[in-house]
């Protein structure tokens, strides 16, 4: 594929880079240099081009995270409605970790994020692909327990 390297890059092919990065992240858990290289090869891009693009977007991670990533919304509306900070505090106490940290057993990573577009139903958190709204400490306990149960 030597010739392909110097060919004008197909712009429509490059358009698949975010999709490819999502797939790679799902497979590898995070975007390791190997994962980036794999995407680059498939799309006929330079690895540094893929890396440059990937680092722009907050949903891509370049370090391993826990099995479940908990993201608590602390946007303005959630803060005003009350409870966003208390939810973070409660999770910190329950999990024994601060924002940006992962539990020792590798189960949970805690993060705080800006607006999740659920301003009408705060406090709100997202765990992996699921959004949880109008949270109470009881609900949080139940959710965490269920996730621990499924391992």
């Amino acid at each position, binding site marked *: 594929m030597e010739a392909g390297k110097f060919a004008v890059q197909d712009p429509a092919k490059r358009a698949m880079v975010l999709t490819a990065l999502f797939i790679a992240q799902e497979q590898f858990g995070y975007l390791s240099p190997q994962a980036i290289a794999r995407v680059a090869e498939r799309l006929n891009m330079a690895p540094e081009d893929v890396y440059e693009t990937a680092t722009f977007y907050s949903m891509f991670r370049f370090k391993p995270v826990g099995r479940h990533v908990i993201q608590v919304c602390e946007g303005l509306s959630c803060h005003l409605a009350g409870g966003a900070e208390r939810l973070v505090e409660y999770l910190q106490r329950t999990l024994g970790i601060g924002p940006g940290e992962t539990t020792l057993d590798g189960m949970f990573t805690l993060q705080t994020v800006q607006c999740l577009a659920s301003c*009408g139903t705060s406090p709100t958190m997202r765990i992996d692909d699921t959004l949880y709204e109008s949270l109470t400490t009881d609900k949080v306990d139940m959710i965490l327990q269920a996730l621990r149960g499924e391992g």
Partner: protein
Amino acid sequence: MFEPVLLKRASLPRSETIEVYMANGGYQALPKALEMKPAELIDLVKRSKLRGRGGAGFPTGLKWGFMTPENVTKYLCVNTDEGEPGTFKDRELVEKDPHQIIEGAIIAAYAVGAQRAFVYIRGEFFLGVKRWIKAIADAYARGFLGKNILGTSYSLDMSVHRGAGAYICGEETAMIESLEGKRGEPRLKPPYPAQIGYLRQPTLVHNVETLANVPHIVNRGAEWYASIGTEQSTGPKVFCVSGHVFRRGVYELPMGTPLHEIIYTHAGGVPGGKKVKAVIPGGASTPLLTGDELDVTMDFESLAAVGSALGTGAIIVMDEDTCIVDVARRTARFFAHESCGRCTPCRVGTQQAVRLLERIEAGEGDSRLIDQLVDLVDGMAGKTFCPMGDALVAALRGTFKFMEEFHAHVALKRCPLGLPYQEGAPIREKAPGASTHAAA
């Protein structure tokens, strides 16, 4: 009592399915539209005076009219990258009634001669992505998308593209960059996307709420549509109400509904009988109004007249116990977080604003901090590459209506409302060229 148009089906069980959509008037506008000439459709939408619902309020028919070149590949982008703090209407429209948007998108694409449509959706909207994919597949299966739609010579393909966490990609040129597989940094305008867009071809970009209006205009006519709302801001509008109100949520009301009516009648007023201190009328980018300005009506021209903007129609209500400096700090933190880093006034300016506001809120320093903040905001105004830097400028200038509160912080060396200063999660240091997020 105003009868909902856009959210009419949203309360029905399984409202997201094509069966419920079609059983309740859905896909009846499309055959009518396909019988019309594109120019007639553009004229219809012009007469309806529909304006964009993503924030800028640009006349939709006029935008369609710019997509004039013949015999070239043209694209339509459906903007589902909702991220403006306080806004949660597009998520509702997509999750509850995706076919309404698809029908509007097909009609828009036909009117401008686009052969390909992209749905760009915020990466975090996992349910929305699923709903979009299912809805598009069902629309193909019924012949509303694909080759020779409903037996006509018109063909359109549509696919879903996930964003990956960047507020700036809601800006149309940044969205196009992102669709091309690049960093979502905005392009200089002009040229506008209608001239040079996706892959340098003419591209029409619309917010989902804008497109959701289109089938209703085709079905019920431009005159009906223009009879709702005000002279220059026509039609229904989905408002999102959050903050200090009893009933937070989305409310579909005519353009021009008074702000106090939305807060007190629809959202049930402020808990504890407290007074409204300030209201952000259109999402975090729009300058706040004081509690004395609630008589304003919610439409493009009335809000512009009081120095603010309708934005996305995201109303954030703040009661008398809210610290405005804290609101300013949180708003600045959002913009610092989401600055794409391309231009210095925005990248550095937003971060400096956060630092100054953190110190003022914590009661550090003296009034020179406030002078520095005002100078910083004046220095940023109009000097950033895209409108995002100016959005923070506008938001902060709004908070300056409560300048005495800024001075009270430095004079008392604490928050005068007695609120403890809460250190937010610090903004993660940027790796060179990297965007911050995740833990911030």
